[in-house]
């Protein structure tokens, strides 16, 4: 029953290698951000930006290196993952550059005695490093099944990465950063990949016990206590992250990913019911006791309270109201790149709130296109999971694409006011080295799995003996 994932095999009829398709899409994916760059430059200063040629060449070079490595080391990989990631990264660079040009942001930073430094060159360096990491993963990870050996090591590694930020001072109310000298990294971004490896290795071994050994009570399959243990541990872990690091987004990401993978591994709806109940209980509990989270929830419920004549004490930030107004002023087609006023969101305009700039300057049409591109990455991940032959690869690609999807949902939902705002970054688009590095590594692992999954079956040897032993067929 639990092994129904193996009842069908899906294979392509067309030519298995789609590298030329990928190359064509990549050229397209480089042209689109260069066009956006020209557009923003013309709107902001009436002339083509001076760095346009070098920017285009740089992005093209990164994309080209990525493509050549995929062609050499993963020839049957999915043709969409690399171009979409390149396009999103390129567009993110353009929007960060556009926010760098804003005089208002520079003025605000000056008023607050902060040094306003251009973020786009840093982001370009991070992107180059991230593509280097992508190349490294593809070259050194010859087979994703190698990761299976490190199931429990990766659990320990992920826990250490998650606990580390507790020992560093909080930045803007959340302990999610590790500072070493002038470098600061967000370990949770990397932990999401490592913990996906642990979940897939663990669930691959335990899924039969989790799926079959259960009692039926009121139409729900209740699992045994000892099988419930791990989900309780993960739940407790994500609640602890929430309490000690006040990082709502990461705990939501981990718990959501675990529930998705549990459901995929066992095909039991009861796990989803349990997961939703437990996350609801945890969220309500933490929101009523943890002041930082409580402020976020109140700001989500009453975004415009800060503009009242006598604002309540918890209304300290205008960000959410400003983000909502930028979506509103964007309308259907947007104000055009470089012509919006989303830089009024002074703080974190180019990281957490970058979607507000997209919403204002590209409008509903542009935001939908960006969200669809994220959706396409997730869809390719799911597709890879369907086509993968080994259960570990199936679970790993489901887990990684679920993590990606949940992250996009949590950020976009937070900025749009659907759920309380959390401190997470829009993958590829937002400013931040850890996020870009981790997401390129995630794409590299998905490409590795999809290469193994889409590789055509080798030809059977010519049969010299027509009358062999009978194959046992049901």
């Amino acid at each position, binding site marked *: 029953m639990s092994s129904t994932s193996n009842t069908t095999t*899906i294979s392509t009829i067309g030519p298995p290698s789609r590298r030329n*398709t990928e190359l064509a899409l990549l050229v397209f994916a480089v042209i*689109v951000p260069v066009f956006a760059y020209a*557009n923003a430059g013309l709107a902001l200063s009436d002339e083509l930006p001076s760095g346009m040629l070098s920017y285009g060449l740089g992005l093209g070079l990164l994309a080209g290196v990525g493509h050549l490595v995929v062609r050499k080391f993963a020839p049957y990989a999915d043709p*969409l993952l690399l171009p979409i990631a390149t396009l999103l990264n390129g567009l993110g660079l353009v929007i960060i550059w556009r926010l760098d040009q804003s005089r208002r942001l520079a003025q605000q930073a000056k008023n607050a005695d902060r040094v306003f430094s251009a973020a786009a060159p840093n982001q370009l360096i991070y992107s180059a490093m991230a593509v280097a990491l992508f190349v490294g993963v593809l070259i050194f990870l010859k087979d994703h099944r190698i990761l299976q050996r490190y199931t429990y090591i990766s659990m320990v590694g992920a826990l250490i990465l998650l606990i580390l930020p507790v020992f560093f001072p909080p930045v803007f109310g959340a302990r999610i950063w590790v500072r070493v000298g002038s470098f600061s990294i967000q370990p949770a971004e990397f932990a999401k990949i490592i913990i996906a490896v642990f979940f897939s290795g663990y669930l691959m071994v335990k899924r039969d016990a989790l799926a079959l050994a259960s009692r039926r009570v009121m139409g729900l399959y209740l699992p045994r206590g000892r099988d419930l243990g791990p989900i309780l541990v993960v739940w407790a872990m994500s609640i602890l992250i929430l309490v000690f690091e006040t990082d709502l987004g990461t705990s939501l990401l981990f718990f959501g990913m675990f529930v998705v993978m549990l459901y995929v591994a066992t095909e039991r709806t009861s796990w989803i019911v349990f997961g939703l109940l437990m996350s609801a209980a945890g969220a309500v509990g933490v929101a009523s006791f943890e002041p930082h989270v409580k402020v976020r929830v109140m700001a989500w419920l009453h975004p415009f309270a800060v503009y009242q004549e006598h604002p309540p004490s918890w209304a300290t930030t205008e960000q959410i109201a400003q983000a909502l107004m930028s979506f509103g002023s964007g309308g259907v087609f947007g104000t055009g790149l470089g012509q919006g006023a989303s830089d009024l969101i002074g703080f974190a305009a180019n990281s957490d709130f970058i979607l507000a700039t997209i919403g204002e300057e590209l409008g509903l*049409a542009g935001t939908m296109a960006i969200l669809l591109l994220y959706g396409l990455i997730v869809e390719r991940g799911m597709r890879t999971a369907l086509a993968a032959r080994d*259960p570990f690869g199936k679970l790993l690609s489901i887990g990684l694409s679920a993590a990606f999807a949940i992250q996009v949902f949590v950020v976009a939902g937070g900025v749009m006011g659907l759920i309380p705002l959390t401190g997470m970054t829009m993958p590829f688009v937002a400013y931040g080295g850890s996020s870009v590095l981790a997401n390129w590594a995630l794409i590299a692992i998905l490409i590795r799995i999809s290469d193994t999954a889409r590789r*055509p079956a080798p030809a059977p040897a010519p049969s010299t003996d027509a009358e*062999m032993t009978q194959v046992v067929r049901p």
Partner: protein
Amino acid sequence: MSELTLTVMRLGFLAVLWLFVIVAVQVIRSDLFGTRVTQRGSARRGAPDRPQQQRQATPPPQRQQPAGRGGGRGRRGAPTKLVVSEGTLAGTTVALQGQTISLGRAHDSTIVLDDDYASSRHARIYPDRDGQWIVEDLGSTNGTYLDRTRLTTPTPIPLGAPIRIGKTVIELRK
């Protein structure tokens, strides 16, 4: 810059962005309409399987590995990989690098067989001192077959000879 130019560029950019999305979805189309879904246990000798046989008869040239890459044993004609050619794991390959390959339903097997007729530790395949690959049945319930004989003792595997475990067929290839 005139208002008109900027408006044209703004709408043009959105059009280009959506064109990219549409092209990407067109690429996916090949997955929707260009795939074959094979049900496990369906008749494989039927007509729908013929294109597969034809396609598989011409393997892509880059898949051919040069002979004699298997570790230190550079003997001509030594197999370099193990291929599952039938069964639910069809298409899986394992590189032969001198390590022992265990087959069975146990989770720690090299090849985990999801086959109702396989035992948890069904068989193993290992190289002897001369680099000759040997298959040995580990006391399985339903037996391991090399060609059409049921194995009773460790037996050398000729290149391309089918080893059958339940519904799964395994071969050694160059």
